[in-house]
């Protein structure tokens, strides 16, 4: 397909007004990616698992640092700021590192699925295979956390043309894979009601540190600037800010204090709704989904 038509057109300044609970200007959520990368996974023809030939011990062990070391520091920073996480979870981590999952549960964090492993890509899956991956996520998260699976972020941002349709059909309510907006929007799927909750690649520590190569203090500045503007605009109509994190990156000693300063700056504001992905999606589904859909227009066929 040339254009997936996942969302209708609804310009930022011409849409129904969003009000978040308790007069919040910004729905703020933090999405730690709790991941497990395999040392020697099977090969998907569309993407090599590692930058270097197998075994890529540097890149593998760098990510392993997140679970052994970085997660525990990130958890403490978030606790000090009173911030719950919405965990983007490679569900196999429940089996490999149940202690990490239990620590998240002990602090009332939410879990959504980020696939099985971050080294198993959805590219080229048959429909039956993709359904099996989704069902495993639903079952594993329920079994280990007692939570119903509501959210989806594709493993390593890999997809088929069917992914979002299947996510909705199998009873999930929100996705983090679309980067088209600063507010939630309805997603066009074959059946069910699905919401896109703004996640962010701009605020994502992987993009910031591994792609844009910025310094920790600069990252903190980026986070504050993003928040300040969304807070201001949110007085008119509620906005969403997400900070997606990876413990192997943010949990490095030289990065934590700058991050925590920015986080505490954000959570210290009066009119910020400290939310989870599920809470934002539910609020939108209940109050604005229909209105947004009605106000929007289908995108035309390009010549």
């Amino acid at each position, binding site marked *: 397909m040339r254009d997936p038509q996942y969302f209708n057109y609804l310009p930022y300044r011409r849409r129904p007004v969003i009000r978040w609970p308790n007069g919040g200007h910004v729905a703020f959520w933090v999405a730690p990616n709790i991941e497990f990368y395999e040392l020697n996974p099977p090969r998907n*023809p569309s993407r090599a698992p590692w930058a270097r030939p197998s075994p890529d011990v540097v890149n593998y062990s760098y990510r392993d640092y997140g*679970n*052994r070391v970085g997660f525990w520091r990130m958890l403490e920073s978030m606790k000090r700021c009173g911030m719950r996480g919405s965990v983007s979870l490679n569900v196999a981590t429940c089996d490999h590192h149940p202690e990490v999952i239990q620590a998240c549960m002990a602090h009332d964090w939410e879990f959504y699925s980020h696939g099985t492993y971050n080294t198993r890509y959805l590219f080229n*899956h048959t429909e039956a295979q993709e359904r099996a991956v989704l069902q495993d996520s639903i079952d594993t998260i329920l079994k280990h956390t007692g939570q119903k699976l509501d959210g989806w972020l594709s493993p390593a941002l890999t997809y088929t043309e069917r992914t979002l349709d299947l996510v909705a059909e199998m009873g999930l309510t929100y996705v983090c894979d679309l980067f088209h907006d600063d507010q939630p929007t309805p997603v066009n799927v074959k059946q069910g009601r699905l919401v896109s909750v703004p996640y962010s690649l701009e605020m994502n520590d992987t993009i910031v540190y591994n792609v844009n190569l910025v*310094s920790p203090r600069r990252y903190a500045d980026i986070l504050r600037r993003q928040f300040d503007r969304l807070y201001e605009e949110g007085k008119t109509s509620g906005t969403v800010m997400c900070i997606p994190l990876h413990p192997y990156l943010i949990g490095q000693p030289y990065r934590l204090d700058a991050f925590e300063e920015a986080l505490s700056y954000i959570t210290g504001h009066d009119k910020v709704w400290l939310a989870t992905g599920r809470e934002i999606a539910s609020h939108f589904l209940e109050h604005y989904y229909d209105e947004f859909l009605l106000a929007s227009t289908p995108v035309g066929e390009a010549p």
Partner: protein
Amino acid sequence: MSGLPEDYLSTPLRRYGMDHERYDWSMLPERKPVKWPNGARIAVWIIPALEWFPLNMKGQPFKPPGAMQTAYPDLRHYTLRDYGNRVGIYRIMEALTRRNMKVSVAINAAIAARTPSLVRECAKLGWEIIAHGRDMDHLHHGGMAEEEERLLVIDSIKRLEDCSGQKIVGWLSPAKSESFITPDLISESGLKYLCDWVNDDLPYVMRTRKGSVISMPHPIDIDDYTILVQNHHTEDDFRDALIDQFNFLYKESSPEAGRIMAISLHPWVIGQPYRISALEQALDHINRHAAVWSATGAEILNAWSSQAK
């Protein structure tokens, strides 16, 4: 789009712990605390690398950081790497000697053949020598025959030992690249520690075919190449990263539970006149703290091993 084989979804290693047998799953906060000598909270471990990148390097199976970049002959990168071993390393030596700091220097065996006096000078300063493979164009990798890799390991250690007169105990693979059996070969060669894996802030035990080898926390983040060359940050950013790293570890540590601050350096990077003071300023910040223990990798390993269960 073609489908994938059915077994793409099979996950035989989905189980408690790791997906391999090399080491056990272990969370840093649950770790048995380690005490450093004299109530120190931070063991400061400085690791410059002396490297040789051949002018006609093949860059297989991948180009290591610092590799030649232009068509042959790439004189600009070749000579700039050599700058480190002629000039830059002497700036580092002065900075560290003036501050009475211990050092472990990772050396490609080719340096022992090309400029043996440099290796001997490091040894004379009391620097510990870590074997760093043959050169930056002999990467250890999964496609390698065991015998070929074994010879590289043994030959590298022998050349460095013969040149320096030191008994070598530590290994850093060129570009931190390993085959599936590098830790086995390192252990079988009689070495005690390995610096390639970046998953921890403390030493930990790796299983090998014959006994064990200790993985030491040699960084890729707190590294002049990463910050200054790869990330294009300023000298002040580099200094601040070192200071922030130290401050956080200092806060996290106590005399009962020590941490390691490891600093990886490349003389052709940090040894430039306009950059060296960034290192000096960071070291001065670190040395203003009393509970700091400047040590070699071997010393840190011995202190840790004597307390490990």
